[in-house]
């Protein structure tokens, strides 16, 4: 199967993904540095996200440099949450003792935010 795909095509694809990954990593660390230096309450990744959008907007970074790597990471974002999610097992003891307020606060808070933001935003958009 691999024999039929020209090595040049595979090479170009690998190169594009490697380049995209390096650009994303550069913005990630730049975002971390900005967040730390300015004592921002926002994590570096979010700062990096805004910086990347700005760099694309002002054509500092051409979109085709990052598209492939970004699509790959965004498409598999759920995979990245699995290890911290498994970390829940460390707190089973505390959760067993205080499960009612913890679970209730989580459920109530989540639903409240979801409804308030969704309904308010749609209402304001319709009002124009």
């Amino acid at each position: 199967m691999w024999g039929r795909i020209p090595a040049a095509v595979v090479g170009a694809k690998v190169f594009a993904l490697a380049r995209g990954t390096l650009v994303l990593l550069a913005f990630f660390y730049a975002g971390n540095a900005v967040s730390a230096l300015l004592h921002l309450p926002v994590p570096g990744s979010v700062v990096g996200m805004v910086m990347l959008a700005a760099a694309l907007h002002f054509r500092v970074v051409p979109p085709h440099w990052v598209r492939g790597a970004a699509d790959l990471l965004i498409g598999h974002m759920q995979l990245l949450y699995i290890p911290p999610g498994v970390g829940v097992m460390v707190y089973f003891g505390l959760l067993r003792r205080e499960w009612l307020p913890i679970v209730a606060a989580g459920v109530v808070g989540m639903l409240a935010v979801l409804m308030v933001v969704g309904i308010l935003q749609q209402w304001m958009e319709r009002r124009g």
Partner: protein
Amino acid sequence: MGDALAAALAIAVTVAAYLAARRLYARFRHPLLNPLLVAITALIVLLYAAGIDYAEYDRGGRLISYWLGPAVVALGVPLWAQMEEIARRGRAMLVSIIAGSVVGVVSGTMTAILLGAPRQVVLSVAPRSVTTPIAMGVAQKLGGLPPLTAVLVISSGVLGAVAGPAVLRLARIRSRTAWGLAMGSAAHGIGTARAVEEGEVEGATSGLAIGLMGLATAILAPPIVAVLLRIFSVR
């Protein structure tokens, strides 16, 4: 077993669980079969059965979760692609997010207080609506237990991804920007992973909501929590 080999094994098992859970979800499309929920449950059961503790698993696991940072950065691409659409609704979004942040902190904190949670638990509950690194930072500042906050953040996210779309349908949310904004602010990155499935507008607004919600909550949570603790005289 060698450290590198154990880490490689943890990564391989995690990826395998993820791929299997995705196939299961693609086959049945039931919200309870959310791939993240299924994979996490399967891995916890597996680790318990094999008698492996979390710290050992996480030597490989953290090589996967490391990429969460660059993945959030990658959301800058859809954010850029949808910039005009988002800019037209920028003011409404700021208002919605600030309202959502206040409601999130107040409702979560009040629920915990009224159900008699100890002070440390109350303080850990307050920032649960935002992405893990921000939430843990806020919990630390408040004097809560950051790891408990992380647990709450992730379970809120999974709950949002599983139940969110149905709730938004019941609330008759048809605007794609409102849909994405609600998922991102209530269920941060995990909600965003689900929003991406829905479409590019939903994914981009959801990604933006993570940042805005994090910022609003980091600023608003400490004073709101201080006032609530005082009103209900929690010690």
